[in-house]
């Protein structure tokens, strides 16, 4: 009996030990879980912060990609953008000319024009002066080889490039209407191939009366050129530098003495004239002080004759 009781007592103690050990193990597991969960929570916070930072970085990089795509798109469509801005600019030029002519603008309009260029020796200096004065002009160009850089500079500086025939050989071009037109179109093709720029304004070499002096019909030529989309212009005031024997002061006076008569005027000058270039700064200053602004010609200007 006592041995049975002893055995039962031992069993009771054993089960208490086992239960106690199980409790201890459970506690240990609980502690393990608690530590792990706490460590996960901390890690979660760190990971969330990392994700936020990475998301921000991703957003910045996405914006960079978008900006680069836009820049590439802009660059690929740069010619279209230039065409658009030119159109807007020239419509303002037309309005400025109209308002000045009607006397409703607080300024007068001057179109500086330079014939017969470009010249390696003089044109770059002339362009420098125009750049320094932040002024745009119109160049009536001939077709000349090995001066690509100057043609390109005139174009990228936003000056108007116009047609003054390819050869400017008076005897040759005024020998017949067809030859004249052929020479104008040859120059148009030359400039278009070089610059991707199609001219639609021309000036007769020697001025439009020269056609009549040479026995041709100016009106008929102008009509035919009109069919090719051309308008033409002579000039309001000439500096007189075309004759090549005047002084700088004479050229300046030729312009300034006549400028007060006009609200809108075009001035004839030549690329090759060093005496003109010498007084160009002063001419621009003086005309500015008389209220003139300087604009490049565009086909829709009233001063351009269209047939």
């Amino acid at each position, binding site marked *: 009996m006592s041995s049975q009781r002893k055995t039962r007592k031992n069993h009771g103690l054993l089960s208490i030990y086992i239960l106690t050990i199980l409790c201890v193990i459970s506690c240990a597991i609980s502690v393990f879980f608690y530590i792990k969960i706490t460590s996960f929570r901390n890690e979660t916070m760190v990971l969330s912060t990392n994700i936020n930072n990475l998301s921000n970085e991703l957003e910045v990089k996405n914006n960079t990609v978008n900006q680069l795509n836009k820049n590439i798109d802009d660059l690929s469509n740069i010619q279209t*953008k230039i065409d658009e801005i030119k159109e807007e600019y020239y419509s303002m030029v037309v309005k400025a000319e109209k308002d000045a002519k009607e006397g409703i603008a607080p300024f007068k309009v001057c179109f500086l024009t330079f014939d017969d260029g470009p010249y390696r020796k003089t044109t770059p200096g002339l362009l420098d002066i125009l750049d320094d004065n932040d002024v745009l002009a119109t160049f009536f160009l001939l077709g000349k080889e090995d001066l690509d850089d100057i043609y390109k500079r005139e174009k990228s500086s*936003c000056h108007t490039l116009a047609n003054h025939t390819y050869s400017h050989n008076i005897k040759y071009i005024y020998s017949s209407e067809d030859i004249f037109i052929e020479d104008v179109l040859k120059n148009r093709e030359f400039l278009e191939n070089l610059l991707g720029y199609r001219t639609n304004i021309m000036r007769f070499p020697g001025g439009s009366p020269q056609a009549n002096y040479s026995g041709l019909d100016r009106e008929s030529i102008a009509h035919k050129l009109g069919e090719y989309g051309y308008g033409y212009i002579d000039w309001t005031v000439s500096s007189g530098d075309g004759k090549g024997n005047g002084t700088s002061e004479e050229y300046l006076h030729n312009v300034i003495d006549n400028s007060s008569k006009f609200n809108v005027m075009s001035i004839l000058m030549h690329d090759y004239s060093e005496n003109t270039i010498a007084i160009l700064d002063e001419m621009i200053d003086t005309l500015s002080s008389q209220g003139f602004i300087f*604009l490049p010609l565009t086909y829709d200007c009233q001063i351009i004759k269209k047939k």
Partner: protein
Amino acid sequence: MKKTFKILICLLLLFLIGVNVYLGRLFLVAQDENNNLHNEIDNINEKIVEIDKSIENLNNTYNNLSNDENNKDLLLEYTNWCHHKEKLEKIMDY
């Protein structure tokens, strides 16, 4: 007395088992959440690597385009037109 003690220990054990089950679930949820976050970070890092490659390619394309002589001239021309347009707009503001 011994019996009561045994019952108490049993109850304590049951309680601890309950606590462990609860903590176990929390542990699994936290582990799952962390795994998801790790995956998310991996995904974002992959995207960043891809975008870095794109940026490099786009930069090269842009540099090639802008170094092209013709485009350089056009860019200069565009900048000049913007300047002259802005200038004339101010003059025309009457």
